[in-house]
């Protein structure tokens, strides 16, 4: 986390971007909250209008398949 002081033991984690189809104002908020609740997910930013979804997470704590499962559970299609 703290890259400026150089003390981080785990670096900055991984940032991944999905393009998701099917968002509306309600389900995008639900997806954001569900993703944030996963272990190691530190940041989620969703552009509802174009489906761009940015996630910062620790792959050691949550697998990519667990991220995509959140979209699937909401009936959404996600592409990297």
């Amino acid at each position, binding site marked *: 986390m703290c890259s400026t002081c150089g003390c981080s033991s785990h670096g900055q984690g991984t940032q991944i971007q999905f393009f998701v189809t099917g968002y509306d104002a309600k389900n995008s908020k639900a997806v954001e909250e569900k993703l944030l*609740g996963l272990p190691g997910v530190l940041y989620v930013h969703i552009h509802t209008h174009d489906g761009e979804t940015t996630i910062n997470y620790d792959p050691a704590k949550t697998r990519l398949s667990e991220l995509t499962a959140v979209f699937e559970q909401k009936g959404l299609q996600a592409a990297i």
Partner: protein
Amino acid sequence: MEVQVMQDILGSNDKLAAENKKIFDEYGIFVLNLIGSPGAGKTSLLEKTIGSLKNHLRLAVIEGDLFTSKDADRIADHDVPVIQINTSGGCHLDAMMVKKVLSKLDLQNLDLVIIENVGNLVCPAEFNIGEDTKAVVLSITEGDDKPLKYPLIFKEASAVVLNKIDILPFTNFDMENARHDINCLHPGISIIETSCRTDNGLDQWCSWLRAAAYEKNERMKKNNG
């Protein structure tokens, strides 16, 4: 009270943290890593906690600060063992720093060790120091936006203390929003509202800590035969 000056972090922190934890486990001691920003009220909360628990649990405190023994001096007034670690500018405690002071504690006669980390919401979240769990103190004056801005500590901690609620009416802190964001980051986490000025919520906080310490003490007694 001793002031330990620490420099040069060496070796694998996680390995050393596991060694510290093993030592604490052997003695059945519950260890809390208390984290929060400067001025969040960590030391005030500690003072109140000591007052409430010291007749029920044998406890000691390790204080982490960049410089000075001001916090340790406050804790020492409460007649519990306290060790000050000065990091000489370092922004967090690490496992080596804690390991070096363990010999100063009478581990045989302790149930609970509270380690007050250096005031910082970022770096201490990344460094295990041998604790059983972390708790984060967030004060009302810091703003309800902090959980999403500093997510890791709220992920890592098992309890959040929202402190200084006595001044809530005089701020624009949105308690509902703060609770919502914390729950999003860490579903099921314990959120406890406190005021060290009015004592509101301190019973709940101390009950949480006492229960956690008792649970470990009993579990380790069984495991250690």
